[in-house]
């Protein structure tokens, strides 16, 4: 088995169940009451962290580091929950978590933070992250992280990785039509932008939580302040869709009649 150094890039996003509304500010768009909204680790970043922990478990000697950019207070709130799930070390960057920021600038900050990880060995490095986020939803950050780090083997929308004894690995990437492209990479370094993966949600583990918090709290305390200026990016407008439909409610209609109506509609 291979000893791997797995770095997961993962941002935080508002809890998906929250109602979100945009507002224009002096520096561009933002979410209304953004700092008041409860946050979670981005869903796809979470999948990648879960996969990273699973891979590290299968490859003894491997290490998982989460690099996260967000407001320090929000990061602390989210890490209190995440720390209970899987073992990792945190590198925190104190800055915006907004989906309206420039992904290339965010990528540069993440890459710089990765380069700064003590003992970084690129020959063992797998950079994980979500293929897209629940905020910007662009899928354009991980590739730039890889470019800056000089990593030419990149994979997007990954659902599975199988690492072989010789360090090579097989990757399953989503392609159109519910299919997967299967590739074999000679080994690290590589960038993998994860889709959903196949792992179940791990239960909370207080022992892992206590172990994680020993490194997470100091990391949060020394989180480096960063800025994302989004230079050259201008928003003409940001608005919620005004497409509330006038729903026709059909009650007390026999199933036969509904079925006939639906079939007629389908065939129209």
């Amino acid at each position, binding site marked *: 088995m291979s000893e791997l150094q797995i770095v997961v890039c993962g941002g935080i*996003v*508002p809890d*998906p*169940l929250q*109602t*979100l509304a*945009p507002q224009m500010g002096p520096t561009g*768009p933002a979410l209304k009451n953004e700092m008041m909204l409860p946050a979670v680790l981005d869903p796809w970043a979470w999948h990648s962290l879960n996969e990273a922990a699973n891979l590290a478990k299968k490859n003894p000697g491997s290490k998982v580091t989460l690099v996260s950019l967000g407001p320090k207070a929000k990061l602390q709130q989210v890490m209190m929950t995440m720390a209970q799930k899987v073992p990792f070390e945190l590198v925190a960057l104190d800055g915006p978590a907004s989906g*309206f920021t420039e*992904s*290339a600038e965010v990528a540069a900050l993440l890459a710089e933070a990765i380069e700064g990880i003590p003992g970084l060995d690129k020959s063992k490095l797998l950079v994980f992250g979500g293929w897209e986020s*629940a905020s910007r*939803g*662009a*899928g354009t*950050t991980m*590739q*730039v992280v*890889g*470019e800056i780090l000089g990593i*030419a*083997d*990149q994979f*997007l929308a990954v*659902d599975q990785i199988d690492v072989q004894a010789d360090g090579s690995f097989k990757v399953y990437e*989503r*392609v*159109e*039509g*519910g*299919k*997967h*492209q*299967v*590739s074999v*990479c*000679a*080994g690290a370094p590589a960038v993998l932008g994860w889709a*959903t993966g196949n792992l*179940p949600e791990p239960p909370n583990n207080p022992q892992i939580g206590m172990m994680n918090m020993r490194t997470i709290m100091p990391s949060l305390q020394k989180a480096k302040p960063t800025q994302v200026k989004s*230079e*050259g*990016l*201008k*928003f003409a407008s940001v608005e*919620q*869709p005004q497409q*509330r439909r006038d*729903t*026709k*409610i*059909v*009650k*007390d209609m026999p*199933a036969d009649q509904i*079925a*006939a109506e*639906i*079939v007629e*509609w389908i065939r129209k």
Partner: protein
Amino acid sequence: MSKVLVLLHSEQDGSLAKSGLEAVGAAKSLAEGLGGSLVVGVFGGEIASAANAVAGCGAEKILGVAGADFAASRYATDAAAAEAIAKAAGADYIVAPGTMRMNRVLAGVAYRLGGRVDSHVTGLAVEGGAPVVNRWYYRQRMMGRVQRDVRPWVIAIDPGAFAPLTGTEGTASIENVAVALADGSKRTSVEGIVAPAADAQTIRPDADLLFVAGAGWTKKQADGQSHVKEAEETILGFVKGAGASLGSSKSLVDQSGEGEAVLSFLTHLNQVGQTGATPRHPKGLASCCHGEEPHAVGWRFITERRAINLDANCGWAQGKADVLYVADAFAVMKKVNELLTS
């Protein structure tokens, strides 16, 4: 004068996908709106057919990168090909179809070119002499109209969001662009595509109808029992009979990890909504789905929407569907299947 490059890749059989023709249409409109010129760039294993499909689109030239090294969808070689074409074109704007293959490399290519990228673009216009793109933020929950000063500006358009350019077939004269592949560009080899058996394929991006199954299909019914097997047969029977694509709510897919009864054919690939896909289909029929706006974003790009649900106040349908049938989906869909096969 502005120059617009439309960057395309050929399919495995050398053809150009519909999404490529959509990108050509969007790029041509952009070039015309800016009073600029259009260049086509194509890479892939075989590119002659793809280039011929757009030979008459009005491009001043067609640049190409072809060969076995570029046949498969691989980051290192695709990025090198796209970078070489972009540099040869010297374009201010690069428009590309947002296929999985393109989406994998475009951000990296933009970085190499010193440019910026916007993906999942659903609208493209010229206002006051400058392009404006529409794209969604926070998983289709708010729409932004974006402008940029940095060039080149790489614009990946969502498949299905623009009309394909047609009637442009001809015989293309391709200007070959040389690509110097860096050492290590072929550390990754593509083995192939894994797909469900033809009769088990439930995701059909080109289908006219999306059928969304919610968690209600596996819950206890009026007799106090769950009827998962019956639900499977009914859903698969409909998807097959109607030629529909099958989507699922997150809760139904997640049940597999929670030890609850599951529909065996559903995977996360079927999932639509906040943490799933937002597919484009002319019509959508949801059944047994529940949830408010975050769940219902899977509907965002569905034109005509109907739903079957036992709850008349369901947040999935109220204000979001055109018609809500308050009824038992088991009974209705069984009848629908009978009608479709009769």
